[in-house]
């Protein structure tokens, strides 16, 4: 089973002054799959996420995301030549993420993300966190606030709907009974799950998770695996995952991309990557010559 790509990243480079954090990286994430981006600390994984989600403007490169029919990628050359951000057709749409500011990447291209250091609205309740995530549809329903101020049924109806959606996600992450508590009051593992649910409330086609298993105990980590698999299988949302925890990566990812010092060193399905000597070397911290030696020994 090879699905069509939903996101293609081509020749992505990000430099901070003299530091090359990401160097000519190309990969793609396929629809309905979990793609893992792994690599040692400082390899540039978070930087790639920040470029995809519009928080950084990449020094170079093209990142295209599609909605709908995979054939829409035919439009890529025409879209790149134009100065537009996106191209819409009857059967789908194509977005150039590097041309969009961060909030539009979520609002229009429907890419959602979580953060390596949890960023919840700690002083707001769990429910409110999930309502803020539905800001754009609610804003529209409130007629840019006007209907809302007068309490028109259009808006109250939409808000009720938003609360139901939030409740559905809370049930799914097992936090329904904490809905009215401040988010900052939740235990760490629950905060991680809430951040994922909050991102899902924006109805993304691509969900980017930055080290979601960091700091979780083995039981929570296993629950997280189940949650991510159920998101993939039930909502059809594609997932791009940064992870350190190899048990998570190896168990749930369909496709793995390995970064080291900003350069892609391996790309493939689990077994390919697991047995790639370059990956083993990068993780064990072996010098380059030795990698070559190992490579020649295994006959690559």
């Amino acid at each position: 089973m090879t699905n069509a790509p939903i996101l293609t990243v081509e020749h992505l480079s990000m430099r901070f002054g003299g530091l090359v954090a990401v160097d000519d990286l190309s990969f793609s994430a396929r629809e309905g799959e979990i793609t893992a981006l792994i690599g040692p600390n400082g390899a540039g994984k978070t930087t790639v996420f920040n470029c995809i989600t519009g928080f950084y403007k990449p020094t170079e490169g093209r990142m295209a995301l599609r909605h709908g029919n995979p054939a829409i990628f035919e439009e890529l050359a025409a879209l790149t030549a134009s100065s537009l951000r996106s191209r819409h057709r009857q059967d789908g749409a194509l977005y150039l993420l590097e041309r969009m500011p961060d909030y539009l990447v979520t609002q229009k291209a429907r890419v959602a993300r979580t953060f390596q250091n949890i960023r919840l609205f700690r002083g707001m309740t769990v429910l409110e966190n999930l309502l803020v995530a539905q800001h754009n549809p609610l804003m529209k329903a409130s007629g840019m606030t006007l209907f809302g101020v007068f309490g028109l049924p259009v808006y109250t109806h939409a808000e009720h709907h938003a609360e139901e959606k939030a409740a559905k996600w809370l049930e799914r992450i097992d936090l329904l009974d904490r809905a009215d508590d401040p988010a900052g009051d939740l235990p760490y593992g629950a905060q991680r799950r809430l951040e994922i649910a909050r991102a899902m409330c924006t109805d993304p086609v691509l969900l980017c998770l930055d080290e979601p298993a960091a700091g979780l105990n083995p039981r929570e980590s296993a629950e997280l695996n189940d949650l991510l698999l159920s998101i993939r299988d039930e909502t059809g949302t594609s997932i791009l995952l940064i992870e350190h925890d190899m048990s998570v990566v190896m168990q749930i990812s369909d496709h793995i991309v390995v970064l080291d010092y900003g350069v892609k060193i391996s790309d493939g399905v689990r077994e390919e990557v697991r047995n790639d000597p370059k990956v083993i070397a990068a993780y064990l911290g072996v010098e380059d010559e030795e990698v070559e030696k190992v490579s020649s020994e295994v006959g690559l």
Partner: protein
Amino acid sequence: MEMPPSASATRVDVPRALKDAAIAGLLAFGMFLPLIGFRTYQTMSNELALEGRPGLLAIFVGLVMAASLLGSLVVRPLAERRAAMRKPGASVHAARMRATIAKWFTPFALGFMVLYPFMVWSFAGTQGSVKWIDNFGIQVLIYIMLGWGLNIVVGLAGLLDLGYVAFYAVGAYSYALLAKEFGLSFWILLPLAGILSAFWGILLGFPVLRLRGDYLAIVTLAFGEIIRLVLINWVDFTNGYAGISSIPRPSFFGIPFNADDDGFAAVFGLEFTPLYRTVFLYYIILGLALLTAFVTLRLRRLPVGRAWEALREDEIACRSLGVNTTNTKLTAFATGAMFGGFAGSFFAARQGFISPESFTFVESAMILAIVVLGGMGSMIGVAIAAVVMIGGTEIMRDLDFLKLVFGADFDPTQYRMLLFGIAMVLIMIWKPRGFISTRDPTAYLKERKTVAATFVKEGRG
């Protein structure tokens, strides 16, 4: 009854208390010596002379030492004993009590504000009540309204604005100039002044969008000063320092409040007194303040309001959820500025005279102090703070009884700022996050629980 085991630990330590009091006295002496210990005055030959005031200095130092002794000998042991004696059930009881108070406070306060002029009238009579309704009631309500307006920017959206008085000024000058030039009525100019202020709010919003925290504070401060300097220097337009006088007063549906035959008193067959206008103005500002409260409470429960608070909590997370933070900030600035503009046009209509002197930085600082002291984001807290701060300063204007303590030549108004500062320091020690620091959630599934202060971010930009 058994004494709790910790009772021995709370025994008072007299030598220690004396030592603390002595240190406090020494500090007070050092601080008050230049402030109170000496006074300059002009002699008959126009020379400046210095006069020592050892008696007054001694009274102040004595007061500080007495307060220190009282604190360590009485207040602290009592508080410790109470804490030690507290039963597990007591906090539940206290919480229920607090909930009851919270439930009844708002209707009670509303009723009080509506009936206030009549209560004062019946107590102080026609002559005495003007002062209490005007200097006290109207003044406090103006600041409640300004506090609530700034609360949107600072308390909800978390954008530290030190130039809020600029919008107050824009509102006041808009009303004054348009009313004098075109003779438009108060009720037409009120919304117009609000719109103009909101426009200036957006104008300020644009350049400061990328700034946060201290930088935002500095730029808004500068903005406030620029507006004031323009008002001073653009003499053709604003009449500079001299200000604008004889600004038209609001009328009662076209009936003016004057002693003429077609004035309010004559039309309704009453005896003329300036009190009618004062009471009318009181109800206008009460209505405006309640409108501010109503709109703010409504907005908080709408996506815009939630986005404001989310912005205060974490701007990056907001953007990652598709919230346009530019628009969110601009709407916060514009809404806050609009209420400032309403208050400003009311101020001009009430005073009949405005000059740049009414719109100095101290005014911005005062409004910000009300918001901080009240508890950022809390409407009731801000209202309480406005009553305490503005009501307090107004009461201090006639503290003649203090002359009994400090001697006949003591002028209490000169010590207003000092007392004011001491009161603020004490309140901040007692309640570091303001009078009401908990946050009311804007939506709930099962049960509305208030959010404890420790989780809520403060509006530091």
